């Protein structure tokens, strides 16, 4: 139950609702870009950090005992050759953060963002907490990843507010972009290959590189725990490789603590929205290239609305892991050697990674457009493609959904002129009237493709709101299942008929489980208590034979294939099947009473009808 309590503490630890967001572009629009890029930059770094250059970092990695150990293990070629290879990997990987390039980056990014976005909102309180945290312990910045635009936004904000610039884990394709790759590298990006597989040497260099950054605290480390850009705009189940490397210095006691800062970046519109849908339909993603980047510059002419960057409350790894792990498992092997973590540690890493993604979700802001997408997708496709929807009805319904989101403690980004803004951007989604530019009739295949692309785009925007609804959604499904079972068993047990009593029964069930201590219900949550497992499993096992029996009979009816049967044939046949199953130990009992009940139930539910003989 303890873990549960923690979870609650941390999930409510995400920032409070009445958050003050500041538009950082507003000030940028008043000053010259050049003046901004050349501003004095004087951050307060981590107090324990040595002032080390990138070459010091590389040297420390190459000379580490860990790497020497791994190199010695690599048989097949000479030690010098392996070392050379390791050096090559490191060269390919390593960042080369330089303030000059940060200024160049800030200059460019500033120009681009001012064109793309109306505003970039940042919560100053989160930023202040980050500034504090960075001085106390090594900090890991963990944004969600929805767009290429994410990549430099955090660095851009930190530069603006005099906070140390992070080094950022990036995919290797970015490095191969001409000039741009090098600029990114000098802006703090370091590059990781995809599909490392079992390349032990590569893993060793990478993990030692990451751990050295964390251990020395020479710069904040930024990485996407989701691993890659979410094409569906829905959070992706976190990847644990980087997370492992990042947390290990704490597990091994090499640092007192590590601070994790979840960052939620939300967009009104994602720059690559049209690409996303095509990609999901199987059209390959264009390869990252500098020329591609220039071609993409047409996006600069569009209005992408606002961007919200929500810096979450810094989380102490020490506090998160308290009571979950026993770090003394690292006491018996030199810490410089690789050691497979216990399942306890692995579970903890997995939990932390999921917690971060959850916190990112909670911190992200849902736009009206996203809510509207939820509604649009519930309308039949033909309504969307042919008939259309009443605009007024749609906005009414969206407002209703807005209230629901607030009740579910979701966070909204609800501009005053939201409806106008949507009607403006929705012309980009040509789902109602086809492409206005082309008058040629579309082939049916093309039509399907086009509709699919539009729907998938809608799906993406709906996905941004899903995290608010998914839990109550499952419960709602559960309730309907409750009603269904209650209905099925109405001949077996006594239920007061009627819709009202359905709800009473459900409430009664919940309250009884709470009363016996099986579940705990507070304002915020329902918890299954450790002590309750016994009760729950008893109850489940109690009803299991009934479920089995009913299922058995349903199965018989489905498999038998006969549409008409007599009760006289039916009973022994079912009994026969049951006996077989009992003999093979697959079911418990089958009384003729139950069989009769099943038949009555099926009749009542109109699955079978009784023919007069």
């Amino acid at each position, binding site marked *: 139950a303890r873990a549960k309590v923690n979870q609650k503490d941390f999930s409510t630890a995400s920032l409070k609702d009445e958050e003050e967001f500041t538009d950082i572009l507003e000030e940028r629009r008043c000053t010259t870009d050049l003046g901004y890029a050349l501003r004095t930059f004087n951050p307060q770094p981590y107090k*324990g950090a040595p002032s080390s250059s990138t070459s010091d970092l590389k040297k420390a990695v190459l000379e580490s005992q860990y790497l020497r150990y791994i190199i010695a293990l690599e048989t097949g070629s000479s030690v010098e050759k392996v070392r050379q290879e390791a050096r090559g990997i490191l060269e390919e990987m390593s960042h080369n953060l330089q303030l000059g390039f940060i200024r160049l980056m800030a200059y460019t990014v500033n120009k681009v963002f001012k064109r793309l976005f109306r505003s970039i909102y940042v919560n100053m309180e989160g930023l202040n907490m980050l500034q504090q945290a960075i001085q106390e312990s090594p900090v890991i910045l963990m944004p969600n990843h929805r767009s290429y635009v994410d990549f430099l936004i955090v660095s851009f904000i930190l530069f603006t507010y005099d906070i140390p610039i992070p080094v950022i884990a990036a995919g290797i394709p970015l490095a191969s972009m001409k000039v741009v790759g090098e600029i990114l590298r000098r802006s703090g990006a370091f590059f990781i290959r995809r599909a490392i597989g079992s390349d032990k040497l590569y893993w060793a260099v990478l993990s030692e590189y990451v751990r050295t950054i964390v251990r020395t605290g020479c710069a904040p480390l930024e990485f996407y725990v989701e691993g890659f850009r979410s094409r569906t705009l829905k959070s992706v189940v976190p990847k644990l490789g980087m997370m492992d490397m990042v947390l290990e210095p704490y597990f091994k*006691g*090499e640092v*007192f603590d590590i601070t994790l800062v979840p960052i939620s970046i939300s967009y009104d519109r994602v720059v690559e929205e049209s690409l996303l849908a095509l990609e999901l339909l199987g059209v390959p993603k264009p390869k990252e290239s500098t020329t591609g980047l220039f071609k993409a510059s047409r996006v600069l002419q569009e209005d992408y609305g606002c961007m919200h960057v929500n810096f979450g409350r810094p989380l102490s790894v020490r506090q998160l892991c308290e009571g979950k792990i*026993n*770090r*003394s498992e*690292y*006491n018996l092997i030199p*810490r410089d050697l690789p050691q497979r973590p216990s399942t306890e540690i692995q579970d903890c890493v997995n939990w932390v990674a999921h917690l971060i993604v959850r916190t990112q979700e909670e911190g992200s802001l849902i736009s009206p457009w996203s809510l509207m997408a939820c509604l649009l997708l519930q309308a039949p496709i033909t309504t969307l493609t042919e008939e259309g929807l009443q605009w007024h009805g749609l906005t009414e319904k969206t407002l209703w959904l807005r209230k629901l989101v607030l009740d579910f403690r979701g966070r909204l980004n609800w501009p005053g002129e939201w409806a106008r803004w949507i009607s403006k951007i929705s012309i980009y989604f040509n789902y109602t009237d086809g492409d206005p530019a082309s008058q040629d009739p579309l082939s049916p295949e093309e039509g399907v493709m086009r509709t699919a692309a539009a729907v998938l785009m809608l799906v993406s925007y709906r996905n941004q709101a899903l995290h608010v609804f998914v839990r109550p959604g499952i419960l709602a499904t559960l309730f309907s299942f409750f009603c269904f079972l209650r209905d099925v068993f109405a001949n077996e047990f006594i239920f007061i008929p009627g819709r009202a009593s359905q709800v009473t029964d459900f409430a009664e069930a919940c309250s009884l489980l709470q009363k016996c201590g099986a579940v705990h219900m507070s304002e915020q949550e329902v918890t299954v208590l450790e002590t309750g497992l016994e009760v729950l499993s008893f109850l489940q096992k109690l009803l299991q034979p009934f479920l089995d029996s009913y299922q058995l009979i349903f199965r018989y009816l489905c498999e038998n294939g006969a549409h008409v049967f007599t009760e006289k044939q039916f009973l022994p046949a079912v009994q026969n099947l049951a006996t077989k199953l009992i003999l093979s130990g697959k079911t418990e009992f089958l009384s003729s009473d139950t069989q009769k009940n099943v038949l009555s139930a099926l009749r009542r539910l109109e699955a079978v009808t009784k023919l007069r003989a």
Partner: protein
Amino acid sequence: MKWNGWGYSDSKFLYNKKGQAEFTGKRYRLSGMIIPGLREWMESTFGANLQHKTPAAPILNSSAVQPPTLNEAFLKELKSTGIPFSHDAEDRVFRSHGHCLHEIFALREGKIGRVPDLVVWPNCHNDVVKIVELACKHNVCLMPYGGGTSVSSALECPPEETRSIVSLDTSQMNRILWIDEKNLTAHVEAGIVGQDLERLLNESGYCTGHEPDSMEFSSLGGWVATRASGMKKNIYGNIEDLVVHIKMVTPQGVIEKSCQGPRMSTGPDVHHFIMGSEGTLGVVTEVTMKIRPMPEYQKYGSVVFPNFEMGVACLREVARQRCAPASIRLMDNEQFKFGHALKPQVSSIFTSFLDGLKKFYITKFKGFDPNRLCVATLLFEGDREKVLQHEKQVYDIAAKFGGLAAGEDNGQRGYMLTFVIAYLRDLGMDYYVIGESFETSVPWDRVLDICRNVKARIVRECKDKGVQFPPLSTCRVTQTYDAGACVYFYFAFNYRGLSDPVHVYEQVEHAAREEILANGGSLSHHHGVGKLRKEWMRETISSVGMGMLKSVKDYVDPNNIFGNRNLL
């Protein structure tokens, strides 16, 4: 001796009428001196204030002591042996505690818990045999008492004990029985305290070289029972290296080896059941120890390092080259400042001018940051020529790690502090400041990490537990070994505004110990386990290890006559 504080009654720190700190008495180098910097240090470090006093109860209120539960049959037979005993309240209270913070704090408040019901003073090994026989016969609980310097709650009477508790005070067994100059051993009664043993041996030109910080008061039997470690172990070894033969009286009879061979291969060494048994198996009565001719020459020294990391690297190199002097200790910056605050008033302008010059040289000329630098104190021993040679070797190594020789005086003062620091805690307790030290041993590669993490943990826990003032959280590396080092932590805070300061203190110390264990440190290097650290024994030595120790206890003392409930 004080009944509710450390050491001799005549020696203590106090603030005189002018508000200056001074150390009373005549026993120590610091005695009778004014310490001008101490007040400011206390005020700035703890936020302590001379106006806010928390004086101790001046005398023991005998009525607060529970009347003794006496076993009349035992008492009657004891009387017939002629062994002296007492059930006077003061005698009993004096032997009811060690020097853990909670023990002294309670005494100062006049709170007395369960105390022994009777104190006996055997005069020799045979007296002990008689007492143990009687205790077994009448089912009386025996608790051996040596110097009373325990810091592990080892002397606390188990509150759940219903039998009569008899404190067996070994202080009258304090003779050197013989000295064997051919083999360089001495046979000594176990009740002798460290300083008497050294003084008596010195008279014959010998020493044991075993100098734990508590040596003024701690006893030979206590050293054996807790696996003590001495400051100069680099030359003389720890207690397990010094002991040649042990005699212990147990409920099953006397255990001893049949010869004095310097090493034996006769199964597991039974001495190792005795050493560290913490009074749970019997009473150590006589010990044969190695002795050495007194060193011809002693020289103190000190080295200033730009930071703690460099200092630790230097100590590690010294250990690697196996050239550690008799003692080498590295204090962190906070302790360096503390040592500085304890400098007595200097008499001549010249000395203070010189001090100023040194400070200028180190901080301005050499660029050491006064808030980061740290100091190592050294003690060399041996014949003059070798000492000088050795000294040069160590200073050369130190120089490679940025160390600057900082004079004999600083070194000597560092070692003197060891003896007065326990007195200082009493001064702190007069002004709302409570604190304690604890220790561990740890592999070399973890020394820096454990120091940083434990210190940080203490600071964080204090904050979390509502301590209103920043705590003092400091450490030093006090011993070097081939494969690791012994680290000592000091921790103290101003408890004004806390309703239950001792509880807060204990929570923080507990957390600090958890941190030590999580960082690969040991449960104890030399303080022992007692009852204070019992809860971690199983994870420390494994369940099988616990079973081994338990089965020894069950065989040797099936009725738990030695019922202090330490260790297991």
